């Protein structure tokens, strides 16, 4: 992976550039919203990528709770951080689309509020990891991640179960999406997913390295004592 990383990074940059070109130039203009609808080519793929990383965090947390596997714990923290970054993008690009289309930046609708709660849960997960110490910290963090993941189905299915202002789902929602739009969505998702995976890999390596350094520092302190 270490050798392939620069090649993958270049390929991802090319894919992201192509996806940007498709979103801004190739995608047809929406009859009702005009060009501002193109925000969803970043908003929706970011949301899908966010779900994937929070799901990885959930699975890794469960594995850690069952097996006390340190690698699973490192995967969980890396996935949570990258998931939060994508969630932040969702929470920023959403209001930038809503303002010209709905006339408001924000509304306390179920989809929007549950997404904000999801972001707050994972931020508190990282705060817990950052500012508490002791052997029980990873267990507490993993338990929080498992409970936090319960918000994910609520975010995802809220537009099916509740009356919300948020638009219906792009895929599987019964609406009629132009096939060209769907195609460009998928290209953008592939690009953001590749980018997210590279960032996740870097964050995971950083976490492993950090733990190794901490271990060596602890051993040095013991030796000095």
């Amino acid at each position, binding site marked *: 992976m270490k050798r392939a990383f620069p090649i993958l990074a270049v390929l991802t940059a090319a894919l992201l550039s192509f996806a940007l070109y498709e979103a801004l130039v190739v995608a047809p203009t929406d009859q009702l919203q005009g060009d501002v609808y193109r925000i969803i080519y970043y908003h929706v793929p970011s949301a899908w990528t966010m779900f994937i990383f929070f799901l990885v965090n959930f699975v890794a947390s469960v594995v850690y709770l069952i097996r006390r596997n340190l690698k699973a714990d490192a995967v969980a923290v890396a996935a949570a*951080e990258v998931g939060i*970054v994508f969630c932040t993008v969702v929470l920023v690009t959403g209001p*930038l689309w809503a303002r010209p289309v709905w006339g408001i930046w924000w509304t306390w609708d179920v989809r929007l509020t549950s997404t904000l709660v999801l972001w707050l849960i994972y931020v508190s997960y990282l705060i817990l990891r950052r500012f508490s110490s002791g052997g029980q910290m990873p267990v507490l963090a993993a338990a929080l991640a498992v409970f936090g993941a319960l918000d994910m189905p609520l975010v995802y299915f809220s537009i099916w179960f509740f009356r919300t202002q948020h638009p219906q789902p792009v895929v599987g929602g019964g609406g009629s999406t132009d096939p060209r739009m769907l195609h460009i969505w998928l290209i953008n998702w592939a690009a953001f997913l590749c980018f997210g995976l590279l960032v996740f890999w870097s964050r995971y390596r950083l976490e492993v390295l950090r733990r190794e350094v901490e271990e060596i*520092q602890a051993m040095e302190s013991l030796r000095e004592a």
Partner: protein
Amino acid sequence: MTYLYAAYAATWIIHIAYLATLLSRYTRLRNEIRELKTVREG
């Protein structure tokens, strides 16, 4: 178009800011490793 460009710019600002924090953490760790090596050799 202002909102569209603002959204695309904000997306990349967020990603680049996160990458910058990763880079700074890597640099800090590398310095710690160097210090540890110096302590061990000294």
